[in-house]
């Protein structure tokens, strides 16, 4: 009880990042994620860390690249338009095998869009977070508690595989308050990074952080080696939550804020006698395709719900490869679907099947 806090998702994420050993934050304000920067500005001086409001998003991500190259845990955060600006730097992080955490508290787009919650950056986060052949780890929290839990995991996993990681949240999760219990701190000492540019002290050959390789055969090999690590990530780091899936013949797949709304809809559908269940991907890359394929065997119908015109639905279709009917329901532009809207969709699908 004593260590349960009522906090905004943005603030809980920031506090948890600090507790996970992130003592260097570089940011630039944008609604609806500004509380992360504000919290870091308040807390970092107290712990002897770095808070720096950069002159732009591009500057901030390159400061992350610099700090993380020296082996420290560094983070930046922004919202959709700001993340687009950071994409070049994220590609450099990936191409240099430098781990770091980037937070996207999504808002409506494209362009400047709006400031209300959205999930329209799914494609960007999972398919094309910058130029070149690469992936970033993508974690999708669904509540304030997970905003706190996943940021530590993102740092650990990023370090383990030397890849950038993204927390893909949205304005609703960033702005809402819920009780949060901060995860136990594992250890003050983080794993040693033998590759980091920490100074040779004349005792070893210099480490070099670089993403420029002009010999195509060399670059091909480096990318292929990186993809071997991606394969290991896809095997070991997939996370998803299941709700009432054991006997479900109608599966809802949703992530983030929409997943908690879908959960209410699934519960209401059960009360109507519809065997609905929910799969909530927690990692969007790696995507829980095996789990969805497995559960699709007993579910003729799958409803994918998103705050977008339909992006994750592509990955669900690829996972089931035509074995189930994949339906889609989305709201976009900052509109959030209500539990009743999703329930109506579930009901409509259930009715058609019975006809």
């Amino acid at each position: 009880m004593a260590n349960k806090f009522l906090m905004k998702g943005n603030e809980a994420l920031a506090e948890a990042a600090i507790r996970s050993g992130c003592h260097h934050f570089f940011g630039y304000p944008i609604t609806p994620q500004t509380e992360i920067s504000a919290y870091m500005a308040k807390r970092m001086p107290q712990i002897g860390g770095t808070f720096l409001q950069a002159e732009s998003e591009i500057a901030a991500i390159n400061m992350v690249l610099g700090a993380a190259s020296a082996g420290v845990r560094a983070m930046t955060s922004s919202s959709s338009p700001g993340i687009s600006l950071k994409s070049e730097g994220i590609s450099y992080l990936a191409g240099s095998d430098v781990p770091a955490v980037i937070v996207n508290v999504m808002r409506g787009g494209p362009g400047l869009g709006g400031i209300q919650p959205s999930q329209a950056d799914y494609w960007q986060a999972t398919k094309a977070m910058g130029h070149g052949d690469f992936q970033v780890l993508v974690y999708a929290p669904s509540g304030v508690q997970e905003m706190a839990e996943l940021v530590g995991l993102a740092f650990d996993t990023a370090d383990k595989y030397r890849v950038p990681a993204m927390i893909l949240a949205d304005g609703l999760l960033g702005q809402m308050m819920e009780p949060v219990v901060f995860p136990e701190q594992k250890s003050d000492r983080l794993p040693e990074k033998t590759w980091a540019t920490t100074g040779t002290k004349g005792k070893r050959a210099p480490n070099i952080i670089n993403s420029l390789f002009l010999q195509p055969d060399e670059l091909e090999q480096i990318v292929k080696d990186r993809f071997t690590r991606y394969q290991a990530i896809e095997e070991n780091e997939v996370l998803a939550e299941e709700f009432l899936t054991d006997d479900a013949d109608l599966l809802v797949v949703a992530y983030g804020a929409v997943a908690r709304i879908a959960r209410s809809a699934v519960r209401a559908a059960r009360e109507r006698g519809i065997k609905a269940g929910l799969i909530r991907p927690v990692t969007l890359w790696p995507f829980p395709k095996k789990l969805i394929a497995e559960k699709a065997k007993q579910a003729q119908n799958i409803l994918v719900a998103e705050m977008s015109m339909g992006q994750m639905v592509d990955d669900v279709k690829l996972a089931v490869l035509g074995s189930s009917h994949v339906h889609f329901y989305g709201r976009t532009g900052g509109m959030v679907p209500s539990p009743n809207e999703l329930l109506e969709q579930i009901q409509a699908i259930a009715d058609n099947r019975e006809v």
Partner: protein
Amino acid sequence: MLTNLMIAGFGGQGVLFTGKIIANTGLLEGKEVSWLPSYGPEMRGGTANCSVCVDDEPIGCPIVLEPDILIAMNVPSFDKFIGKVTKGGCVVYDSSLIEAEQTREDIRYRPIPATELAARHHLDKFANIVLLGYTLQAVHFTSYETVCEAIKACVPKSKQKLLTPNLDALRLGYEFQETKS
């Protein structure tokens, strides 16, 4: 039992703070709670509202579309949300600022001249807490002591001089008796 509350008014009337106190009562009672503000330009002078959910089960949608309890602090908010209040629900509103016809028969109307009452007791900035006190009297969503504890938790250390007027305003609303005219 799920209780959905909507607190609505102008930015600056203490809409979000009132919601935070209510959310804290749920936290103190070990329940699941969520608090969601309207954000952006609304916070800076337009109509602001705040959704609070208190439940025994994990909360699905934190956006309150149909409040069981509506606390309305201005006319636009009253007009916007009065039709959404659930059957058997309750609306507590500041009758100093809102002249309302009580057109629905399936909900309870609880008007209180919160702004005037607060001013008369030299608690000018605390009409929101007067409303909160009256809401507690009308709906008993928690105990009086729990709300006092929640207020203590919400008043920041740097503003402790505001604690007593908050508690006074709470009592003022809690003990208010509607005089039939």
